[in-house]
């Protein structure tokens, strides 16, 4: 229940946060809403020596219309994403999923950037980023770079973020009326998905999976099958192609494969693929 001691540094600007991260060394961690990091620290599964608090950087909390895309600041809270009219209109899949994360209290504090940067394969938002081919903006000592979501998640809780980089913005292509579906399978509403599927059908199809690998992943087999004209049921049979879903207290890998097939089929049917 009680975290280990750490040095606390509060950043007053993005530039300062990047500097502090650099100074903090390997055990420095970024603190935004804290809803990914603090639970680990309380169980002493994580004991960072320096916490750089960016929670006060209001300039990173926004939703902007970027023409063909929506730009969402990394410190925008889940509840704000969920309740945003413009998100609801232009990227309704994102608004919907933001309302499915954790519970209301978590959504009041947790941030979109924190959730994505944590790189947890069991989180919902990374799948949305993948399915929509979102673009992530990372800021570091040498400036800003853009990374496609499909290149961002590199391993278990590992991402393309360098040690001294900060995720600042996520750009979601507007859906423009495309149909979509999010299927979250869990036992209790507050829990992480045992398996989840985000799907969007807009000419081509984007299908991504929650908790089906050591990182957030695309259902590449499904996307390829759809591109080749497969029916939802035929495409869904490829849900776990090339994947090694985890086995844990909730479910075996074998059952996750089965669930992925069912949920992908349902998602594609709902998204009108």
């Amino acid at each position, binding site marked *: 229940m009680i975290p*280990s001691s750490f040095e606390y540094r509060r950043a007053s600007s993005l530039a300062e946060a990047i500097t502090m991260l650099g100074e903090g060394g390997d055990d420095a961690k970024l603190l935004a809403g804290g809803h990914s990091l603090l639970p680990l620290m309380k169980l002493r599964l994580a004991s960072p020596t320096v916490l750089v608090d960016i929670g006060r950087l209001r300039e990173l909390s926004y939703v902007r219309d970027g023409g063909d895309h929506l730009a969402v600041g990394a410190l925008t809270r889940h509840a704000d994403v969920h309740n945003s009219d413009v998100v609801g209109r232009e990227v309704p899949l994102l608004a919907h999923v933001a309302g499915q994360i954790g519970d209301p209290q978590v959504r009041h504090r947790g941030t979109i950037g924190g959730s994505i940067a944590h790189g947890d394969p069991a989180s919902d938002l990374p799948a949305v980023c993948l399915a929509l081919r979102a673009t992530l903006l990372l800021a570091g000592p040498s400036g800003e770079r853009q990374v496609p979501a499909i290149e961002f998640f590199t391993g278990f809780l590992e991402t393309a973020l360098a040690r001294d980089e900060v995720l600042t913005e996520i750009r979601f292509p507007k859906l423009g009326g495309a149909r979509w579906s999010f299927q979250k399978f869990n*036992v*209790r509403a507050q829990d992480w998905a045992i398996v989840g599927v985000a799907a969007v059908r807009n000419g081509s199809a984007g299908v991504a999976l929650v908790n089906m690998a050591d990182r957030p992943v695309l259902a590449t087999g499904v996307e390829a099958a759809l591109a080749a004209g497969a029916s939802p049921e035929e495409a869904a049979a490829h849900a776990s192609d090339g994947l090694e879903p985890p086995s844990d207290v909730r479910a075996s890998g074998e059952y996750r494969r089965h669930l992925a097939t069912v949920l992908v089929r349902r998602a594609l049917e709902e998204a009108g693929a």
Partner: protein
Amino acid sequence: MTATEATTAPGSAGAVLGTRRLRTEDPPLLTGESLFVADIKLSGCLHLALVRSTVAHGRILSVDLGPAKSMPGVVAAFSGADLKDAWAAPMPCAWPVTADMLSPTHLPLAVETVAYLGDAVAAVVAESEYAARDAADAVVVEYDPLPAVIHLEDALSDRNLVHEELGTNSSYTWELSPDPVAVEAAFAAAAHTVSKRYVQQRLIPSAMEPRGVLVVPHPYGGEYTVYSATQIPHILKIMLAITTGIPETSLRVIAPSVGGGFGSKLNVYAEEILAVVLAQRLRRPIRWVEERSENSVATIQGRGQIQHIDLAADSGGKITAIRVKLLADMGAYLQLVTPGVPLLGAFLYTGVYDVPAYSFSCTSVFTTMTPTDAYRGAGRPEATYAIERAIDALAAEVGVDPVEIRRRNFVREEQFPYASVAGLVYDTGRYALALDKALDIAGYQGLRDEQARRRQAGETKQLGIGVSSYMEMCGLAPSRVLGSLNYTAGGWEAATVRLLPTGKVQVVTGTSPHGQGHETAWAMIAADRLTMSPDDIEVIHSDTAMAPYGMDTYGSRSLPVGGVAVALATDKVIDKAREIAAHLLEAAAEDLELTDGSFRVKGSPTMEVALGAVAFEAFSAHNLPDGMEPNLEASVHYDPPNFSFPFGTHIAVVELDTDTGQVRLNRYIAVDDCGNQVNPLIVEGQVHGGIVQGVAQAMWEEALYDDDGNLLTSTMIDYLVPAASELPSFETASTITPSTTNVLGVKGVGEAGTIGSAPAVMNAIVDALSPFGVTDLDMPATPERIWRAMAQASAMAQAEGEA
């Protein structure tokens, strides 16, 4: 069997009982004013943190306290070896169920070996909670690991021993077999038999308030005040005296606001004893507050049994004999009533049925897991689950509806009082009435029609309907019966009622509520008899200095034992008050009636004296009848003549997603009969909460261990206590069949919901699965378990088709 619809005039006896009075406990709880143990702040208080074993089973090679002792804020640190001579007696087990029961020595801090993850090996005391936690993390302990013993059948084989010194893992075998020849004969002659193996998975009780203890020493006076999150302040006081050697007269135990127990706080724990001993040594207040992940390993767990049940029946499905063999998981040690829990079920495997022949045997084994002990229902949910699942299997075997098989076997109304083959005498019951009412509310035939329609249409979402008719024995208990079962203590309860000089009333009870609303209900019982308002009555409890006698709260005993004691003590006070009133009115006592809080002479209503005036007379003692003692106070120590036997029928309606194996509880109907109801609002609340604990066992909860004895479900992320989002609202109703063995006609209701619900839900799930060839399923019915059962049944059907 009286009707309870009868109205009673306000101000007369019977005006308060049965009303939905709002709880007086609520405003302080709703505003944060109530104090739980962790809320009590004392300056100079030290904080205790424990170092728990990191291996399920092993020898302690070394404990290095050095780094911890040198940390800032640390006052002291102790290993088990440091304190091995500090205990006057080992941790108590109050229920040696057989003369040859084996029980390992159990000390608050392990000295040479650890036998489960909750075993504490060192204690650290510091000026703050944060410093204590840091220091506990700095203690270095080396172990030589020993094999974990996780599976009950493996434990029984003695392949690996949990306690080498015992030479076996079996603690005891206990039998109840009044006529074994009759049982064997019935099976030999049976037209139908059912033979089932059910698993009662381990559960984590998960009271929302973890445990906590605060010990305040008075070093120069020699006394200790112990605040504990406990259900049993009275028993705890006695056990602390025995285990610490501190005279009972120097111990005062207070259970402040307690955040739920469900049996998990019906115990005497290492931390309570340890905190007293450390407060004695360090001469400062000591506080220990349990963390949730600590609670998961260090607080007792529930259930943990493998049940073999066989039914024999005639051609019409009438049960002729039941044979039960249990293998029960004690965990690493015997806690306060660990060995007795499976035996509380021994009397209930015949359920609500008229069964002529019965035999029961239970063997209990040690494992390297957290000790088991009483968890809501304690033995009776397990028994009810087995018989209610098995009778559904019998219905399938005979080819009749589950409702019909129950009707054919019920103990009938005219058979009461009914002497069961297991040796109980049930006072009252109307099992068919509760069943009919539940069927009516459920719209049973309509549900069956809808189920048939969905099956016909091959829909993805299939319905399952499950029925469970239960009865249970509660209200622990007649002391002589407990004695005959080798339980160390009695089952009486104490109450004192005082009429104070200003006309207010004090009720002192030996029960110790932790959510049940005794303050409200006991005031209602006394008010009803005194014909006054419950607002003028104070209920004192849970403090051994103010309520010195008591046997505390568990086993649905508080109302049928403690509440009845309050009623009897009230009557005793009224009797004395009547004498004084008669003296004052110069009338005969038998000519007085008590209404609206005053004694009136029958036929001369203007001749009256208020209870308050009588109380003042008793206090001033200026004008009492010759030889009468001053003051109006009466005490009762009530030993119930029998258990109480509530009953009911629960119906669960589930929807099964046949693609994923996920089940949703759509509807839940509960008709319960707990006799007369003091406060229906509270009764319903008890039923609601009870239902969910049984539903949760059926659908979600399981303490899962890996083969090394590590608990995989040690947090509330992994141990699935359900939230509102997982449940429907319930459809509850009651029938009222008063008990004939107590003056209030009441029966306990705290555990009934849990006892009825798990089998109803599992019967519903198996019912939904039956078209897919699935005939059985273990709890919890996780989506994966259901999916596997469907896949397996389908594979078998295919294999048979090909053969």
